[in-house]
């Protein structure tokens, strides 16, 4: 078939067309890794739990929040009744066990790490699953509200095995129909869905349009109904137009600069905490936000999102060019060089140029090195960089925003930062379910990172989804993912 086949606009008038900037990888919940995949899962694959607009975890396929034993070693999850997968298979405790076991054991599973606290999964009765844990784990519930909570149809799993991702079947408002590599994905309304009365669309199609302004133009011309994750500039343009609206979400995603602090890095910033401080002081987060992001982001100095109940307001290093200049002078290094690596992309490059200009004002010599994201990640993980401006999509539980990023040897610890104290603070926070204690522990870890500066947090992102004025009922959560379950197009 040619791209776009079967999706002729007039064929099913009530199909929603959404543009999204990146293409998902595999649609197999066990293997999926990208943010883009999380985005489309919401349309066809529900999880045991979900988050609400306050980042509170709420049941989705589960009937209620889990019952956790006193010692925190078992977790009983009661499931919603009368639910069926999109292929008609009944949704049962056995099905949940099949999925979780697959997540835990499958080679190349991307979930195994997230679920590592689980020692085994037991079926108590057809609607109750028990997770037996190796140790108490606070972040586990949040994982079940994320990709690890996606449940797959056992029938489809049996049929497709490792190729489940080519024709995935879950519980969801829409079911998978077709995918045109690099171009689009098609979903149609599911008749098996338990909440089907709320679904008013006949189907939904995701088109991949990398360039934000192109996506915006498509929205304006009516070729798409919603343009997900467009740039602030485009959002502002759209706001002025009559036929369109802009939804936004203050997300849990954040933007930061990782600084290579490996002992052997040999860069000016790696050698001197003072220079790192000067670098941070040179950055006017407010002005940066204004010029690049049209003041749409929320300047911040820590990883935990504003909505998180565990958040303690971090202490921010203020913008102080004079002090920064003094620090640079004191360091004894004449115009210390900084190479700022940024992933290619219009907005990030503009951001990098503003940072460059600001740091240059206090005496740094900044060069910007744009690089494609894959190469950038490769270099960052191998410690072959100086400073790396990039973003993190954010997690509901603070553990997902800290562990693995600022802990020793973490796969996203680009800085090469290694601090016993921080490591232990974060481990302790994960091992308790006491929110007040966790909050305190994270605050201490964030403060310590703030002082040593392997990572400079800049702000939490506000994301925008442009929609046609006819589109209603979209729910845009702080995880940055618009939900189209209840969306409808007004005539």
């Amino acid at each position, binding site marked *: 078939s040619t791209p776009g086949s079967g999706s002729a606009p007039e064929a099913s008038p009530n199909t929603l067309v959404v543009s999204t900037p990146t293409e998902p990888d595999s649609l197999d919940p066990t293997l999926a890794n990208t943010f883009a995949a999380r985005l489309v899962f919401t349309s066809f694959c529900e999880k045991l739990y979900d988050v609400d607009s306050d980042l509170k975890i709420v049941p989705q396929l589960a009937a209620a929040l889990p019952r956790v034993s006193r010692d925190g070693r078992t977790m009983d999850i009661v499931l919603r009744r009368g639910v069926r997968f999109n292929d008609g298979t009944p949704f049962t405790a056995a099905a949940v066990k099949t999925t979780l076991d697959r997540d835990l054991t499958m080679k190349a599973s991307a979930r195994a790490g997230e679920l590592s606290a689980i020692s085994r999964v037991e079926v108590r009765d057809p609607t109750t699953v028990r997770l037996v844990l190796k140790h108490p784990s606070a972040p586990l519930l949040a994982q079940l509200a994320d990709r690890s909570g996606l449940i797959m149809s056992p029938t489809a799993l049996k049929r497709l095995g490792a190729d489940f991702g080519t024709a995935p079947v879950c519980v969801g408002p829409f079911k998978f129909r077709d995918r045109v590599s690099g171009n689009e994905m098609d979903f149609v309304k599911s008749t098996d869905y338990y909440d089907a009365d709320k679904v008013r669309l006949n189907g939904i199609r995701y088109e991949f349009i990398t360039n934000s302004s192109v996506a915006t133009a498509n929205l304006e011309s009516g070729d798409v109904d919603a343009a997900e994750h467009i740039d602030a500039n485009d959002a502002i343009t759209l706001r002025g137009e009559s036929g369109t609206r802009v939804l936004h979400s203050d997300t849990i995603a954040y933007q930061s600069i990782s600084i290579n602090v490996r002992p052997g890095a040999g860069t000016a910033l790696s050698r001197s905490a003072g220079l790192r401080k000067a670098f941070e002081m040179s950055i006017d987060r407010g002005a940066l936000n204004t010029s690049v992001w049209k003041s749409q982001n929320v300047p911040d100095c820590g990883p935990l999102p504003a909505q998180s109940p565990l958040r303690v307001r971090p202490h921010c290093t203020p913008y102080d060019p004079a002090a920064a200049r003094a620090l640079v002078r004191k360091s004894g290094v004449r115009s210390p060089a900084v190479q700022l690596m940024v992933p290619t992309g219009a907005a990030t490059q503009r951001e990098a140029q*503003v940072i460059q200009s600001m740091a240059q004002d206090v005496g740094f010599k900044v060069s910007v090195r744009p690089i494609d994201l894959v190469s950038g990640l490769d270099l960052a993980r191998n410690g072959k960089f100086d400073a790396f401006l990039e973003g993190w999509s954010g997690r509901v539980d603070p553990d997902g925003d800290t562990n693995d990023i600022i802990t020793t040897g973490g796969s996203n610890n680009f800085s090469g930062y290694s601090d016993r104290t921080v490591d232990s603070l974060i481990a302790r926070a994960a091992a308790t379910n006491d929110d007040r204690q966790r909050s305190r522990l994270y605050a201490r870890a964030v403060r310590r990172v703030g002082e040593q500066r392997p990572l400079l947090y800049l702000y939490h992102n506000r994301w925008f989804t442009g929609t046609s004025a006819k589109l209603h009922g979209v729910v845009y959560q702080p995880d940055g993912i618009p939900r189209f379950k209840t969306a409808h197009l007004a005539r």
Partner: protein
Amino acid sequence: MNNAALENGPSAAADPGAAAPEPVPQWRRTLRRLLRRRMAVAGAVLVLLFLLLALVGPLVTGSQTRLGLTHLLAGPSGAHPLGTDDLGRDVLARITGGARVSLLAGVVSTALALVVGVPLGLAAGYYRGWADSVLMRLTDLVLSFPYLVFAVGMAAILGPSLRNVIIALAVAEVPSVVRIVRGETLVLRSQDFVEAAVADGARDAAVMWREILPNMTNTLIVKATVAIPAGILGEAALSFLGLGVQPPQASWGVMLTSAQQFLSQDPLLAVFPGVAIALTTLGFNLLGDGLRDVLDPRELL
């Protein structure tokens, strides 16, 4: 020119040894004929204008990287004759800076391609044989890769930068240089004066360097006037795709990329760099057309 030169040559009647009283050097004649072509002169003026812009412009227009976060996307004004861009930088200064990048990319990539391609083409055409066959297959190979695909790959491998763009453009240009030089060499090689040099006992290198090469300077000049604008367009295209020069340095392609984001807010931002590219390449093309008419109409591509 063979016959014309022969017939228009000496006119004074004298002994058989007498040459024309005051022969005009060939380059002067060529220049004079070139200057008679209005379009070629217009092209030369454009080229010189942008050359001047690239050389002394930045001294006059001020910094192309200074941000002006208080006046983003401002329209043309006294302070900023062409307005400012999305980061409040002076567009005129950036156009000027871009001229440097563009001309550098066009000229250096062409020069590199010539430096590499000419000896290869000479050797291939002069010696023929298996080395020639191998070389021809390799040029086939490079020619059959769309150069942008090729450059996208190169830039991804080497990382985006002006240097790497120039390398990519040069590599993409080498095959056509090799082919042209080889073709010319094949023709010249069978010319009697080359045979005569061989008969005199000249070494191969001397034959190629002294006899063959000087006779294709016209072709190479014309080739350069075609390759330079192609290089400028190539740099712009690669920069437009984000594979070119690094910010905050300006290049016309980079400017167009960022302008693309503000098409509806500030279309002028997309107009200036585009016009600059078009005028520069137009200049070279006009000049090239003129030179081709004057020097030798053989090569056309």
